[in-house]
């Protein structure tokens, strides 16, 4: 118990003095996971909406694939992204392995199916007649899609939270493609693993608490927006 208390003390100490290393690690975590979430939002919402609004052969299979993707293990993603990015691998010429960019790519791959899946579910929840109504009012197809996305915006915020939450707490892929390089690709989760390995449990606990705080802050802002918008 004393250890946890020490960790909490250490966490506030590190935050209070704005320890440059911890600050850098925290900012990088936000940058990497934020960028990855943004990229996933783009692909996730497009694909999710497309699958939700269209009928095509193999649609059920596509939906099952997306739902499976939602529980794709990060280490599996990490392994495949590593193999792709090896400098003697298929995309080696990009020289991206062990960079923050590689971490963004891996995290985007992890978050995209999550956001796609939730988008899909959200769009299917909309009343069927809504589409007909919008179309009968003379909207173009693009206008209809935009309106439907706007109608589903509250569940879509949940998609952002799930996606962001999934990647900021992820460690397996980040350590494989980022390498946990000091001052360069070390994020909160990989630093926690390393400090645990070094037996610096108080620092590890401090980093965990900072991670929890940030996850809470980001989600609190999004939830605030979501709840304010709740249809009355």
């Amino acid at each position, binding site marked *: 118990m004393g250890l946890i208390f020490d960790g909490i003390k250490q966490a506030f100490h590190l935050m209070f003095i704005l320890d440059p290393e911890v600050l850098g690690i925290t900012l*990088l975590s*936000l*940058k*990497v996971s*934020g*960028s990855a*979430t*943004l990229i996933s939002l783009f692909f996730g919402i497009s694909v999710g909406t497309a699958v939700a609004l269209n009928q095509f052969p193999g649609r059920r299979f596509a939906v099952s694939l997306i739902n499976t993707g939602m529980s794709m293990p990060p280490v599996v993603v990490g392994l495949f992204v590593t193999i792709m990015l*090896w*400098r*003697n691998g298929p995309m*080696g010429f990009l*020289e*991206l*392995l*062990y*960079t*923050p*960019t*590689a971490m*963004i790519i891996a995290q985007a791959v992890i978050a995209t199916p999550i956001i796609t899946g939730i988008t899909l579910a959200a769009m299917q929840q909309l009343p069927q007649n809504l589409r007909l109504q919008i179309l009968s009012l003379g909207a173009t197809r693009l206008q209809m899609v935009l309106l439907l996305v*706007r109608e589903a*915006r509250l569940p879509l915020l949940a998609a952002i939270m799930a996606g962001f939450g999934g990647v900021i707490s992820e460690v397996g892929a980040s350590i494989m493609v980022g*390498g*946990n*390089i*000091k001052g*360069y690709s070390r994020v909160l989760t990989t630093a926690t693993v*390393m400090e*645990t*390995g*070094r*037996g610096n*449990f108080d620092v590890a606990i401090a980093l965990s608490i900072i991670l929890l705080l940030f996850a809470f802050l980001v989600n609190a802002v999004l939830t605030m*927006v979501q709840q*304010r*918008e709740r249809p009355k």
Partner: protein
Amino acid sequence: MKFSNKRWFIYLLLISFCIIGGLLSALPAGAAEQKNIILATTTSTQDSGLLDVLIPMFEKKTGYFVKTIAVGSGQAMAMGQKGEADVLLVHSPAAEKKFINDGYGVNRRLVMHNDFIIVGPAEDPAKVKGTKSTPESFKKIAATNKLFLSRGDNSGTHAKEKDVWKVAGINPEKEKWYQQTGLGMGQTLNVAAEKKGYTLADRGTYLALKKNLALDILGEGDAILLNIYHVIEVNPVKWPKVNVPGAKAFADFMVAPETQAVIKTFGTEKFGAPLFFPDAGKNVDLLGK
């Protein structure tokens, strides 16, 4: 409704800008090429904190940027074999010789040594304390079926441990008292402490972690326990993308007198004893004699 919609979009815009800003500032960080060196090394050099001292020195001196990937020696050499690392700092001599003979590495140079130790719970249920010979100690652990934690990750420490079992004439692989963690040295020590088991550890990591571990040194000083670190440059003939000058600069740095002087004193302040003994230029066969 209209008003709150607008606000929602403003929020979304703000979030997007933050994220795009983050993305843009994250990208240039990856653009410093040519000057990058990938160092594949063992967990012990990272977990003991030695590299945290040496790497900044090297970077300041040469302007190279070192990407340290801390894995087991086995994985480090596998990375070298695939041309995914430029330079290796490893401690698995038999595997290293094979690595050089197969043409994957060049210019293998002696850097430093410390030693392996047998650690276990203070109560020492297998009564190995006082046994001079390490294989004898291992035999006692096996004979009494006491828990032994193996790294199980093809690291240098794991290779050494397998050597000792071989000398002892025991194959522990399928035994119930023999558990493989598949983790780094630091984590394996923690597991051993929690489960009150024995394990083989490098002295550097043990000393660095000692304050949090309920583990005592129960065997040391046997010649078989010598732990020798070499630096190896990856052979560019097989993989043209290897950063040859960078690898050479790092290897040269590791055996340079100033670096060796830092290695000599590293850890004395914090742990009361040095964690590594510098050996550059020495004859490896004379170590520990």
